[in-house]
């Protein structure tokens, strides 16, 4: 069966780009997180939308599972082939198709990386930028949009899925659909005013289709950029501080963080506030706005702005920052996973305390933080744990801590983001049954043979 499947896949993409070898099956069976491995039967690298379509048709004919994969950096095991089948690695489809500077959008292929888009814009449209996640630059634009990611323009533009302007998707049936304006006009400027079908593919963990192209919003790339770090000690004040800082609508990005290392940071709550401007005068104006918004706390001497020497500012302004990847080496063991929970801002204090308690209980190296999404509309609060992959006990500790964190996040009122399998089941338990029922019916309509990333979003 597998030999026959591989032979059929070779007919579609060429023998160089199909593998059923033990090496690929092993490496693609897992990601960097704590989820146990699950091997695919084959890995395939399509180069065109039509090849993706043919792969899906083949899978449908054979009733073989299909798992779409971007850079494989989700950390929560969403691109594991839970029931075998074909992993469709999208990275050969990495072209930047179009940039529309007047309407500020870019159209990219499903495997285009964040880094490539950033480089392309820097070279061809230096006046524009897109919102980069904190993921390494090989992360794909499509993958991050699909998981409702966020990034360094999320205060300005919301989640990355909010910045989506349209998609080309290969359905499980092999049909190719276009959501948003591109489905009607050929341009990719907006998801409105049509029925918003893009939602059928956002947050579904690849269970409803394979994105082959997408449009995303671009934003002005400022000539002058700066970062402020606001420091407080009382977690209970954080929601109000965030509310005030976002109320002046000057920041592009706002990321609270709390870590025990370096020593000077322990016990303090920091908020990095990134902002930019076309002129120095405008930058000063925005800085004044931000500082004035929290003046009361400074006057009361319960919070303040951290003086930052220019080299350190440069480090905080580096996008993407390799410092985040380096967290994985905290335990000298190459392992790193986190629960990112989307939740209301007012739950910040509870989330913070829960994170500290879980880290202490499980004895794990932690980093806590959040990214504010929109003008204080919600946040992605993350509880990150580093572990040593070579030490099974350390992996178990991190895994237990993650599970406890998912439970705590749900109890607080948050929702685990890009949830790994156990967390998906926890979410489903709390989800309104009719809503979950609708999810099932939608999947049945789109994917009657249940081939798309099966095992995810199931009871």
């Amino acid at each position, binding site marked *: 069966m597998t030999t026959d499947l591989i032979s059929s896949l070779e007919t579609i993409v060429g023998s160089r780009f199909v593998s059923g070898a*033990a090496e690929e099956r092993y490496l693609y069976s897992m990601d960097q997180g704590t989820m146990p491995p699950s091997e695919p039967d084959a890995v395939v690298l399509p180069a065109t939308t039509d090849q993706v379509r043919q792969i899906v048709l083949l899978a449908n004919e054979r009733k073989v599972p299909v798992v779409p994969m971007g850079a494989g*950096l989700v950390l929560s095991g969403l691109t594991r082939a839970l029931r075998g089948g074909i992993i469709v*690695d999208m990275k050969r489809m990495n072209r930047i198709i179009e940039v529309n500077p007047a309407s500020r959008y870019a159209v990219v292929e499903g495997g285009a990386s964040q880094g490539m888009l950033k480089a392309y814009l820097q070279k061809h449209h230096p006046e524009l930028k897109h919102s980069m996640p904190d993921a*390494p630059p*090989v992360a794909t634009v499509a993958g991050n949009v699909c998981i409702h990611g966020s990034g360094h323009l999320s205060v300005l533009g919301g989640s990355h899925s909010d910045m989506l302007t349209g998609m080309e998707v290969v359905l499980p049936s092999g049909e190719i659909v276009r959501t948003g304006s591109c489905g009607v006009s050929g341009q990719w400027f907006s998801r409105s005013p049509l029925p918003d079908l893009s939602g059928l593919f956002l947050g579904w963990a690849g269970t409803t289709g394979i994105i082959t192209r997408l449009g995303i919003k671009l934003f002005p790339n400022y000539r002058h950029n700066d970062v402020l770090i606001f420091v407080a000690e009382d977690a209970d004040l954080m929601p109000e501080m965030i509310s005030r800082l976002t109320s002046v609508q000057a920041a592009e990005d706002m990321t609270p963080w709390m870590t025990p290392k370096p020593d000077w940071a322990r016990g303090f709550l920091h908020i990095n506030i990134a902002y930019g401007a076309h002129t120095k005068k405008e930058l000063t104006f925005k800085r004044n706005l931000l500082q004035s918004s929290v003046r009361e706390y400074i006057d009361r001497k319960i919070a303040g702005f951290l003086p930052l020497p220019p080299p350190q500012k440069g480090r905080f302004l580096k996008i993407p920052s390799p410092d985040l*990847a380096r967290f994985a*080496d905290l335990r000298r063991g*190459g392992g790193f996973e986190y629960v990112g929970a989307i939740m209301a801002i007012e739950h910040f204090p509870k989330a913070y305390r829960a994170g500290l308690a879980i880290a202490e209980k499980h004895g794990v190296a932690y980093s806590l933080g959040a990214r504010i999404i929109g003008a204080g509309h919600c946040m992605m609060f993350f509880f990150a744990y580093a572990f040593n*992959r070579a030490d099974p006990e350390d992996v178990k500790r991190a895994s237990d801590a993650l599970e406890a964190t998912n439970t705590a996040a749900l109890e607080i009122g948050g929702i685990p983001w890009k949830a790994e399998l156990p967390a998906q089941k926890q979410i489903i338990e709390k989800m309104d049954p009719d809503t979950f029922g609708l999810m099932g019916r939608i999947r049945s309509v789109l994917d009657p043979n249940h081939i798309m990333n099966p095992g995810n979003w199931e009871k």
Partner: protein
Amino acid sequence: MEHEEILHRCFRCGYCKLPGNYVDINCPAYLAFGFETYAPAGRMWLLRAWLDQKIEAGQRFAEIMFSCTACGNCVEQCAFPEFRDRLLLAFTAGKEALLEAGIVPPEVRDYLTRIQTHGNAYGKPVKKSAEWALGLDIDPFSDQEYAFFVDDAGAFNPRGQEIARSVALLLKKAGISLGVLQDPLVTDGNDVKAMGETALFEDLAEKNIQVFQARNIRKIITLSPHSFNTLKNDYPAVGGQYQVFHYTQALAFAMKRLAFSAYLPEAVVAFHDPCYLGLHNADYGSARMVLQAVPGIRLTEMDRNRKNALCCGGGGGNFFTDILSGGEDTPARARIREAAAAGAQILAVACPLCAIMLEDAVKAENLDNTLRVQELSEIVTERIDFQAP
């Protein structure tokens, strides 16, 4: 396996796949094949799995490991300080372990066998290693300041021989005192070492060192950046300590001695940084100094240049084993497309292996009518005014 204690520390973040400006994939093997297994992180995880007996090593495993061109992009771009310094060492150790286990791609086995048997990758008698210079107006080495070392590509490959002759004559024209070694020389061993055949490398190095010592050689100019790298960095540990220069370094400071024709058309030239001059030895200036000294040459840069340069795909022995060949996204073909996109009329190279790889690629890309791959000394020589005093 040496360095095995670092394998599990790789997070697979993927910085190693890219250049520092993120413009495209910059790991040659990963670019050519696309599977995660062929990226540096994939190799790290596979080696760990093999050592942990979670996976058996077979021919594909060996092909993955030996597809590494040892270009050093991963070392340059890895996000983890200190750890990254050991990346290539770990890959070399992995290859060494595979060699010991007898799990080797046939192309690698044949390459190493030829070198073991003949002392060079071409299977030629080493006594003919100076024949490339027959009839050339360059003296045999006696008491000149520099010995010119051309390695087996310069000695036996027809295109390499052309380049060796061109470089030797230009160095002489620039007033550099050099001579050609008439003694039987074996290959430098650089790529043998990168393949993990440490014992064979040491044997090769010792043989060459014996020749150098017998001739009382102190200063060497190399044709190949590969030779420059290993003679400079590896031979001292085997007992051979020399002042080693790549020919671009010798030329860079002698250019003012050359007179150039005044009426040559302007040419837009991009320089392809060879890995063993650039990434391994941080010389990004010499070749550009040479080109900038030539009237009528306008230097342009490809998106991936200097520390971000893309390997031609010929490093780590791949020039001979050809493991990366066969697709549209071979590094050499990608490099040609990049040069064309940069508006270059000439892609300048300073390594015989790069020259041959890229000359093949420009034909494969059907760009040979608009883009010329040219070795640096040939570019300079074309513009010299030989009538000038």
